[in-house]
């Protein structure tokens, strides 16, 4: 217990870094995921194929490989440098890798949501004379959005947990590295592990409960 108290400030700083990574990646991956899903349902075969190729390649690559490649390959070898400050650069590289990866899951969740809306809804909308944009705006998307809440929540939860893989990109400010560092210094400490685990659960479980509750509350009765 003493170790947990002694190292609490370090660990808290690390955890705060994880949360910053999660916030930045959440925003970026939601934007990129929306763009990807727009490509995948667009009437243009080229864009559809490009979106599908991106999703299938990135989704099937291990995140560890992706993040290590961002740091060792893109930054060190190819000279992709966001900032002269190594710590800021590391943060941005991890955010980039994590967003590129999570966006594929966001895209698939959104696409699955659109697919839950039965054909009849679109047919009925057309039959009563709504235009394409009206039927999308008034009929399809409101139903699709509700079906997407819970899966998107799961994607975001996974992404928050994935922030710990930042270590693979050589970004050594997050809580996983802070934990490893204290273990190296003082030996393994069960209270520290439990403390960090509880911190993650305190963030992750409410998100799961909230999105679950919201999706049940807004569920389309069919």
């Amino acid at each position, binding site marked *: 217990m003493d170790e947990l108290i002694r190292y609490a400030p370090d660990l808290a700083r690390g955890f705060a870094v994880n949360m910053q990574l999660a916030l930045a990646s959440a925003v970026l991956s939601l934007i990129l995921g929306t763009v990807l899903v727009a490509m995948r349902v667009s009437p243009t075969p080229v864009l559809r194929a490009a979106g599908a190729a991106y999703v299938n390649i990135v989704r099937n690559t291990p995140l560890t490989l992706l993040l290590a490649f961002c740091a060792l390959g893109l930054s060190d070898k190819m000279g992709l440098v966001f900032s002269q400050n190594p710590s800021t650069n590391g943060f941005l590289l991890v955010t980039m890798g994590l967003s590129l990866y999570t966006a594929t899951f966001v895209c698939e969740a959104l696409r699955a949501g659109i697919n839950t809306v039965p054909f009849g809804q679109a047919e009925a909308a057309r039959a009563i004379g709504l235009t394409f944009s009206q039927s999308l705006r008034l009929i399809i998307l409101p139903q699709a959005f509700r079906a997407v809440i819970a899966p998107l929540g799961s994607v975001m939860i996974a992404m928050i947990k994935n922030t710990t893989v930042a270590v693979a990109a050589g970004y050594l400010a997050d809580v*996983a590295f802070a*934990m490893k560092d204290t273990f190296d210094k003082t030996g393994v400490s069960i209270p520290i592990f439990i403390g960090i685990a509880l911190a993650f659960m305190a963030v992750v479980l409410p998100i799961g409960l909230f999105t679950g509750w919201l999706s049940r509350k807004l569920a389309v009765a069919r």
Partner: protein
Amino acid sequence: MNRANVLFDAPGPRGRLRNHLLTAIGLVALAAIGYFIYSKFEQKGQWQAEVWEPFIQPRVWTDFILPGLRGTLVAAGLAAVCALAFGAIFGLARLSDHAWIRVPAGVVVEVFRAIPLLLLIFFIFYVMPQLLGGGDYVLFALVAGLTLYNGSVLAEVVRAGVLAVPKGQSEAAYAIGLRKTGVLWRILLPQAVTAMMPAIVSQLVVLLKDTALGFIISYVDLLSMGFRIIPPNFRPADTLISAAIVIGAIYILLNMLLSALATWLERRSRRSKKTAAPPVAPTNIPGGLGGRPPAPAALGSE
């Protein structure tokens, strides 16, 4: 029937023009991205023969890549077997009629699903030498971490699978005089397993991808071979990027094969008359490190 046919009118002259325009813009944008990558590679000398040449030497495959692949597959295989056992036990425990079994199993499953896998692996890696004395716990930590996490996700799949069997099945089974065990083993599980198969295989894709975390604790897998071992062996040629691309392609191929298996199983179980349960949708599984397991119907086509 295609969704697009329902949503869109058949495009008229203006619509067709707009679509052609979009296609052209898309092509130009893709070509620009392609050229940008090509020229960057050119600038850094990544197209030079010596950068790619190692990957056509048989030695590189037999000495580095295949042993790395073996490391990945060993970890994935061990973890898959253990996780399936863990998932079956805890999934059934969560369905128990006795609260003293059901509640602790539920707590275990929820806790291990919420902890980041890497933290779990680190912790096991550091705690084992203290418990059992020195030794090499790299593989053990990786397999144990993967087992606890994926096993917990699979426990939820098992539970959902058994619950997906219509109630009439167990009522009928009780009515013909089967006991609790008989109902579970003879009626519910055989039907649930068929319904669960696609979701289980999807989770195995996640597990296979997550073995790459072994890289961080220096387990010798495909990823370590590509990033730590191959590049220093071929200096001065700078093979890190080419190695990463080759390794990445192997991972992608493996996972796509497994995903294709999941899709095929899902189609089969949808057709199957052997089960009254609808297939357990992988979307019901809260995502893990790999996020939501790939939706089975999403391989390439729309």
